[in-house]
Structures are given as C-alpha cells and as structure tokens.
C-alpha cells in the first residue's frame, strides 16, 4: 500500500483505516495489526500536530509492505526535521494520572516497533519501521 496524504488529522485516520484493511486482507494477525495502527497513529498525529508550526500544507507518504516474515512501514514527510529516536524515554511513575507526562506516544511507538530507523534527506524526514508479527504477543497477565 502506498498513500500520499495532506497533513490533516482526518486524512491520518483515513490512512489508518486503509492500512488496517491492507493488513487484514494479507491475513496479518489481530495483535500485529493493532501494533501497526498504534505506531502509525502516534507518529502521524505527532507530525500533523507539531511538524508544520507555520501552518503550511504538507505532504506525508505512507508505504506499507508485507514481507514474508515482517511488516515494513516507511513514512516520509516534508515537515520540520524531527528524529523520534533522539527523544529520551519519559520517566514513568507507575500512574500517568500523577502528573502530565509528555512523549507517551513516541515511547509507545518505539517500544512496539521491532526495528526503527530515522534519516533526513533532501525530501524531508524518513522513518522506516519493521514489525515482527511473531513478537506482537499479547501480555500474558
């Protein structure tokens, strides 16, 4: 699946539904589909909300590829430079209601992806993420 969307929240959610449908048709199991959806939501919502502070119209490309042993996701955007791997994981007190904690979404995305790469080139930001469906296990407890 290859999609090119404008930097608007409603288009992000249309893209999430398309991605989930693509994974469903490829018989990717439910847990892995939910992982991909979560990582996509966290990264795309973050890009739309913070990547274009001047309010310009931007373009985000989503490329989802189903390989024999993994799901590969590539995101490209023309937003401000942002490397999700450069952010320190948040300090988690054991109850997120104790105080406002920033960076939860990025922390979730990084924790769930099996492999996460970032690069910036002339076109903008590029993130490549791999999901291993055999690791999308649901918690045992």
């Amino acid at each position, binding site marked *: 699946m290859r999609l090119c969307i404008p930097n608007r*929240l409603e288009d992000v959610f249309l893209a999430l539904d398309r991605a989930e449908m693509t994974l469903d048709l490829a018989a990717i199991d439910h*847990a892995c589909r939910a992982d991909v959806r*979560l990582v996509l939501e966290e990264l795309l919502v973050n890009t739309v909300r913070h990547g274009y502070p001047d309010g310009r119209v931007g373009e985000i490309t989503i490329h989802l590829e189903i390989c024999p042993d993994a799901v590969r996701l590539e995101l490209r955007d023309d937003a401000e430079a942002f490397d999700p791997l450069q952010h320190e994981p948040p300090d988690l007190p054991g109850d*997120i*209601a104790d105080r406002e*904690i920033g960076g*939860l*979404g990025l922390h*979730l995305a990084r924790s769930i992806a099996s492999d996460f790469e970032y690069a910036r080139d002339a076109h903008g930001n590029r993130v490549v993420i791999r999901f291993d469906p055999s690791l999308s296990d649901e*918690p045992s407890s």
Partner: protein
Amino acid sequence: MTLIVRSESPIPARTTVWLEGRLDAATFGDLDSALRDITPMVDNGGTLVIDLSGLEYISSAGLRSLAQLRRQMHDRDGRTLLLNPQPQVKKVFEIVKAVPVAEVFASVAELDQYLDHMQRQITG
C-alpha cells in the same frame, strides 16, 4: 469504528461507564464530553467504574483522557476502577505503566469483592 460511551448510575455512590470501539486521537473528545455530564453524577468520594470489555484499541490520546478523568475523580476523593481491559489496551497500559495494578480488575466478581472489602473497612 468509532467510540461508544454508555453509562449507568444505579446508586449515586457508584457509576459504571462502558467504552466500546477505539479511544484515540479522533475520539477522545467524545469521551471527554460524555464524562463532563457523567462525573458530576458520582457522589464525592464515590466510585467510577470504567468497563473496558468492549474497548478494542487505545492510543496515547486515549490514555491522556483516562488519566485526566482519574485526576478529576481523585480531586473529589473518589476513585476510578478499570474493568476487564482487552489485550491491546492491556499491552499499552503495561508499556507506559499507566495505572496502578490495584485499580485494574479482570472481572465484575473481582471488582465487587474489592468494593465489599473496602466498604467493610469503612463501616468496621
């Protein structure tokens, strides 16, 4: 699929809210506005039970709404208990250590047992 919020308050001391669907950056506003009507119906010091049996998916935006709700209840000396989180929701809770384990229950029976125990402690 969107988010459906239902609630029932058989007694002012205890209200149950059922969430169904997805709680994410597209739907958290629906929960926030539904809860603005629901939480004032819970007595100060009362219990709000969030039944998560029908919630298939949560993202960080949904976690923030639940955290805010738990803070509001806490400010009114009330408590928020979470019931029966499904696999994806459980996984997200675990990754960010979202909620103290003591406030999450796997079944209504477990939850009732806990509330009875708390009640006995209060009444002696």
